[in-house]
């Protein structure tokens, strides 16, 4: 009857979002008066899950799962859920999690709520709050099935430490050939670059930067802060920056701690996608730009003057606070 949480790993390592999912699962388990069982696939650091309230880890070590495969991963998680008789299955909301979760929900005949931001407000009926209308509203959703799948948003519930001794058991799901009919041929992933999904800080540039040749300023600031770089939609449409950097309603969502918008006007579609960020800073030479209404801190000024100065000051600050 435990709460099951799927813990994503990359190259054997867990990410912050994985520990957030574990923390959330512990919160739900406390409400239900039960414990948390985690399932991880080819991960190294299973014991660390105890720091976030996990009592038992089902450790799947299987070379067939070395490459991500949504169908096979969902199958493994579903089997773990059935073994554990889990009524609540918690998963994060990374690109892979969002790929797995709907398949898993069908496997378990479970109602699925995605983008959940808080612990259930009630467990009978089972009610969770999720974002809707691309962060312009919340929806309180009832899940009526016996088994429930909850996708918990990044940077919403956050990390909650909870020292628990985690026992680790090997778990060998039965995988069918039918699980492997979509094949990964190649993966193209920039190394040593902070991704928008993982970043604590995102520095984003808009059309106000005038051209791709001026992105050095954005990259310098991002590098100083250990941040990911992003851009507004027209910037990617014009080919100044790759599509993968386009954030907003029709691009990637951003839920970072700090979002710095430079030369971005703050159109409703842009704001919708980045609004889940905790603190927003805008740098824009037009005091009437709508972004000032959405931001926490603002500088009215020319990006070409402000950015180099700001980067210099931040370098000093970093050096003094290292």
């Amino acid at each position, binding site marked *: 009857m435990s709460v099951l949480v799927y813990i994503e790993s990359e190259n054997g390592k867990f990410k912050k979002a994985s520990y957030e999912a574990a923390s959330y699962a512990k919160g739900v388990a406390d409400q239900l008066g039960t414990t948390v069982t985690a399932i991880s696939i080819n991960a190294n650091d299973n014991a660390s899950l105890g720091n976030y309230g996990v009592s038992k880890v089902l450790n799947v070590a299987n070379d067939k799962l070395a490459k991500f495969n949504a169908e096979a991963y969902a199958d493994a998680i579903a089997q773990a859920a059935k073994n554990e008789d889990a009524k609540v299955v918690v998963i994060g909301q990374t690109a892979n999690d969002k790929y797995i979760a709907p398949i898993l929900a069908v496997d378990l005949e479970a109602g699925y709520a995605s983008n959940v931001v808080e612990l259930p407000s009630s467990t009978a009926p089972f009610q969770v709050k999720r974002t809707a*209308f691309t962060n312009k509203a919340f929806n309180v959703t009832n899940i009526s099935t016996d088994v429930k799948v909850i996708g918990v948003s990044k940077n919403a519930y956050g990390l909650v430490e909870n020292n628990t001794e985690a026992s680790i058991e090997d778990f060998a799901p039965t995988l069918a050939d039918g699980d492997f009919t979509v094949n990964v041929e190649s993966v193209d992933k920039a190394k040593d670059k902070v991704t928008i999904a993982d970043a604590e800080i995102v520095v984003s540039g808009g059309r106000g930067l005038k051209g791709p040749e001026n992105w050095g300023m954005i990259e310098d600031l991002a590098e100083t802060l250990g941040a990911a770089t992003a851009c507004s939609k027209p910037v990617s449409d014009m080919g100044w920056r790759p599509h993968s950097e386009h954030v907003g309603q029709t691009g990637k969502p951003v839920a970072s701690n700090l979002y710095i918008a430079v030369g971005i006007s703050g159109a409703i579609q842009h704001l919708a996608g980045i609004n889940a960020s905790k603190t927003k800073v805008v740098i824009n030479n037009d005091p009437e730009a709508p972004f000032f209404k959405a931001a926490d801190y603002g500088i009215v000024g020319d990006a070409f003057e402000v950015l180099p100065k700001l980067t210099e000051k931040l370098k000093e600050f970093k050096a003094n606070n290292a």
Partner: protein
Amino acid sequence: MKILVCISHVPDTTSKINFTDGDTKFDTNGVQFVINPNDEFGLTRAMWFKEKQGASVDVVNVGGAETEPTLRKALAIGADNAIRVNTEAKDGFQVAKELAKVAKDGNYDLVIAGRESIDYNGGMVPGMMAKILGANFVNTCVSLEVDGDKATAIREIDGGKETLTASLPLVIGGQKGLVEESDLKIPNMRGIMMARKKPLNVVEPSNAEAFTSSEKFEKPAPKGDVKLVSEDNLDELINLLHNEAKVI
């Protein structure tokens, strides 16, 4: 190749989001509805398959009669037939089950849906539909080629891309990248005229069960005013970010 494109009928991205009936219903007053942007990229890619590979393209929506103008727009863009499953869309699971039935009955080789609709952002219909159908599935799909019964797709992952191969039947959750923004078509007069004559078949639902229901909506708490910092006093900004917001 028979293609089915799933069309979600959603408020235009500039819509004011308000609720009525004690915050239980979305207020459609003054709201313009459009083809969900993620689905429009998929529909446009389907038109490419139609032109270059002789594919047939049908579009489908699960919803009431009010969604028909959105289906007509898809016909005006160039789809051959439209299907409306005549029932209110209650949750992702119910919609996925209704769509899977249409896909199965029509023997489609390729089902193109959007990675998420911009109203409820469930992000679950394509994956559930694929699993119900026993079809292959690629989510967050940004490129799709089909050769015979083999598909090659590129999927966006966190921080990069992954190239995948799978045989048909295939379901994708699509988004921008399937085609470029500049490839999107605004229906011309001829398309609109022709769309009026194209079949829009209303089919009765299988009465699939929903597993979740909406209790109510809430709006985010109003935000405080922005704190403006002079560009000559950047130390103050750093101080605020460090000591007040605690983000650096």
